[in-house]
C-alpha cells in the first residue's frame, strides 16, 4: 500500500522532468557527441593528407581522438547512424570471418583505383572502410607492410576522408532534421509519441550495456578453458579496455538523464556505474591479453558481472519507471 503511494508520488513529481528529458539528452549528450565526432574526424583526414605513414605519430594521435569520439556515440545506433548504413561504414566489428584484412589485402593487391574517387569509395565493402580497417593499416604488422607503399598511403587517406565525410553527414542530419524529430514527436513523424522517443533513448542505453558486456568483454573472455584474447576489440592499437571505459562513461550519463525523475533509482545506478568504472581503472590490461591467465580472466569477468548487474537494474527498474521496454534491436539474431 505504502509502496504504491510512494510510487505514484514519484510519478507525479517526475512528470515535468519527463517532458524535457529528451531535449536535455539531445543537448547535453547526443548533439555535442556527434559534433565532436565530425570535428575530430575532419582533423584526422587532414592529418592523414599531410602524413599517411603507419608510424606517423600525429596521425595515430588524430586517429585515437576520432575513434574515442565515435565510441562515445556508438551506442546511438538509430536515425542518422542507421541511415545509409553509416554506423557500419564507420565501424564494422566484430569481424568473425576476417573480412577486414581480406578486403584490405585485395584492394592493395589489385591497386584498386577506387581510392582516388571519394564518391566511388563509398561503394567499397564496409569491411574495407572505417576505424577498424584503418587500425589494420596503422597497427597490423602484416598489412602495414603489404604491397606498394604509395598505394597503402592513398588507401589510408581514402579511409580517413571517408570517415570524415560519413561523420559529417551524421552530424548534419542531427542538426537539420533528426533532433527536431525527437523533440517534437507527431503523427506521421519518425516518432509518433513522446514514449516512442524515450523508448529509442532507453534502447540505446540497453544496446550500449549489451555491447560492452557481450561483445567488448564477452568475446575475448570466451570460456575459462578457452579464452580468446585475439577476439578483443581493437587490440592491435591497445584500445580494448579504453573503449569499455569511454562507452561506460557515456552510457552512465545517458542512464542518469533517463533516470532523472527518480532520485533513488538515479543513485542506485550511479553507485553501480562507479563500481564498474573503478574496476576498469584497476584492470591495467589495455588489450585484454590478460584473459589468457586465470587471474586476468577472473578480473575481466568480474567487470562483466557488474555491467550485467547494471543491465538487470535498468531492465527491471528504469524501463518500468519510464513505461517503456527495449522492443527490437539490431543485436537480435545470430
Amino acid at each position: 500500500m505504502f509502496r504504491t503511494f510512494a510510487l505514484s508520488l514519484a510519478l507525479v513529481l517526475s512528470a515535468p522532468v519527463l517532458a524535457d528529458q529528451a531535449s536535455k539528452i539531445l543537448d547535453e549528450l547526443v548533439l555535442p557527441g556527434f559534433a565532436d565526432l565530425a570535428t575530430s574526424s575532419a582533423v584526422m583526414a587532414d592529418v592523414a593528407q599531410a602524413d599517411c605513414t603507419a608510424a606517423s605519430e600525429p596521425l595515430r594521435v588524430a586517429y585515437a581522438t576520432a575513434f574515442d569520439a565515435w565510441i562515445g556515440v556508438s551506442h546511438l545506433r538509430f536515425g542518422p547512424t542507421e541511415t545509409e548504413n553509416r554506423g557500419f561504414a564507420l565501424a564494422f566489428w566484430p569481424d568473425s570471418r576476417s573480412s577486414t584484412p581480406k578486403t584490405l589485402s585485395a584492394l592493395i593487391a589489385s591497386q584498386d583505383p577506387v581510392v582516388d574517387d571519394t564518391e566511388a569509395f563509398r561503394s567499397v565493402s564496409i569491411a574495407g572502410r572505417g576505424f577498424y580497417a584503418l587500425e589494420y593499416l596503422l597497427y597490423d604488422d602484416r598489412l602495414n607492410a603489404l604491397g606498394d607503399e604509395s598505394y597503402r598511403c592513398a588507401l589510408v587517406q581514402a579511409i580517413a576522408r571517408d570517415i570524415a565525410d560519413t561523420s559529417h553527414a551524421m552530424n548534419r542530419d542531427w542538426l537539420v532534421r533528426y533532433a527536431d524529430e525527437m523533440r517534437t514527436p507527431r503523427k506521421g513523424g519518425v516518432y509518433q509519441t513522446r514514449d516512442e522517443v524515450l523508448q529509442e533513448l532507453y534502447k540505446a542505453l540497453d544496446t550500449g550495456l549489451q555491447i560492452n558486456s557481450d561483445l567488448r568483454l564477452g568475446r575475448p573472455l570466451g570460456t575459462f578453458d578457452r579464452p580468446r584474447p585475439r577476439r578483443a576489440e581493437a587490440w592491435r592499437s591497445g584500445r580494448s579496455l579504453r573503449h569499455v571505459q569511454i562507452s561506460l562513461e557515456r552510457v552512465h550519463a545517458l542512464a542518469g538523464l533517463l533516470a532523472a525523475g527518480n532520485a533513488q533509482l538515479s543513485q542506485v545506478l550511479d553507485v553501480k556505474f562507479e563500481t564498474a568504472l573503478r574496476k576498469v581503472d584497476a584492470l591495467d590490461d589495455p588489450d585484454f591479453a590478460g584473459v589468457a591467465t586465470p587471474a586476468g580472466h577472473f578480473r575481466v569477468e568480474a567487470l562483466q558481472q557488474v555491467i550485467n548487474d547494471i543491465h538487470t537494474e535498468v531492465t527491471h527498474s528504469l524501463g518500468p519507471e519510464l513505461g517503456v521496454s527495449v522492443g527490437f534491436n539490431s543485436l537480435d539474431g545470430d
Partner: protein
Amino acid sequence: MKSLFFAATALGLTMGTAVLAANKADVLSNYATIAEAKYQDSLITAQLLQSAVNKLIANPSAENLQLAKDAWLASRVPYQQTEVYRFGNAIVDEWEGKVNAWPLDEGLIDYVDASYGGPSDENELAALNIVANPSFTLSGKTVDAVKITPQLLADTLHEADGIEANVATGYHAIEFLLWGQDLNGHGIGAGNRPWTDYAKGENCTHDNCDRRGQYLKAATDLLVSDLEWMAAQWADGGAARASVLEDENAGIVTIVTGMGSLSYGEQAGERMRLGVMLNDPEEEHDCFSDNTHNSHYYDGLGVQNVYLGEYVRVNGELVSGPALADLVAAADADLDVEMRTKLATTMMALGRIKTAAESGFAYDQMLERGNAAGEALIMGGVDGLIDQTRSIQRITATLKLDNIDFEGSDSLDNPNAVFH
C-alpha cells in the same frame, strides 16, 4: 479484465453471430496449430530429401544428384516459414542451431578450393576436412571418425571448439554436400559438385566418396530426427504448445517477439544488409545452392502468415483461424491496416528479389560492389522489414504488452529471454 474485453468486443457485433472477435486463447491455439503444420511439412519434405539421398548413395548418377538437390530446395519452402517461431520460443531457439546454423566454414566438412585458405585466427578447424580424415585431433583429444554417424556429427563435431562457424549438421551442411562451393564469385552459377563425388570405385572424384556418402546420409538422417522431435513439441500435449498456451499475455508477447526479431535483427540486419554492405557472395544465406532469394522470401512470408493466422500447407490445404491481426483490429483498426500494408509491402519487395533471381539476376550479382540495381532490390527488402518492425513495436504498445516481460516469470529470471 478478460470479461470486460469480451463485453466490449461483443457489443460491436451482431447478436448471435458465430464469429466473435478473437480471444487470446484462440489466437494462441491457432498459432500453435500453424507451427505444428509448418514443422510437419518440414518433416515430410525432409523425408523426401532423405529418400532422394539414399537413392543417390545407392545409385550415384547425375540424375539422382539433381533429384536430391530438387528435394532439398523443396524442403526449404516450409522450413523457412517456421523461422518466425524461432525467437521468443525458447524451445525452438535452443534447437534451431542444429538444423539451420549459418554461416559455416565448410572446409570443416569436405574438400575446398585452394583460395579458401587454411585454419583462420578465429577457427583452427576451418579446414579440417572430416570426409578425408578418419582420425583427427580436437581440443587435444584424438577423435575416432572411422564411421561417420549422426552421433559423431551432433555430439562431437557440431560447433566444435566452441566455434559457431563449425557447422557439421543441418540444411546448410547438406546443401554443401550436394552443391559444393560456389566458386563463381559474383558471377552466374551455383556450386558445381560433380555427381562422381559420390561414385563408386574408380569413378570416384575428389577421393573418399564412400565417406562423403556416409556424411551426407548421417546429416540427412539427423535432420529428419530433429524435425520429428520439433513437430512433436507442437502437437497436442507437446512442450512448445504448452509453453505458448501457459500464460496468455506471455504467449502473445512470444508471437510479437518472433515477428519483430526475425524481421529486424536477423533478416534485415544479419542476413540481408550485412551482405550488401560487405559485397561478399559468401554472405548469401543459401550460398552453395544460390537459393538465397527463396530463403528471404519464405522468411518474410512466415512473418506475414503468423500475423494473419493462415498458412498454406505443402499439400495445398489451408490452415487458418483467429490471429494476432484480429486482436490488433479490435484494439486499433488503423494499426491493423498499417501492419497489413507494411507486411504486404515487404512481400512485394522480397518478391522482386525472387523474381529477378529466378529470371537470371543471381543474388551474388546483386551483392557485387557498385551494382546499384542489385543493392536497390535488396535494400528494398531491408527497408520493408525495418519499417514493419516499427509497426510490430506499436502493437506491443497498443496491446499493452510493454510490461509483460517484467511480470512473466521466465523473463524475470532471464531478462534477455524475451527480446533475444
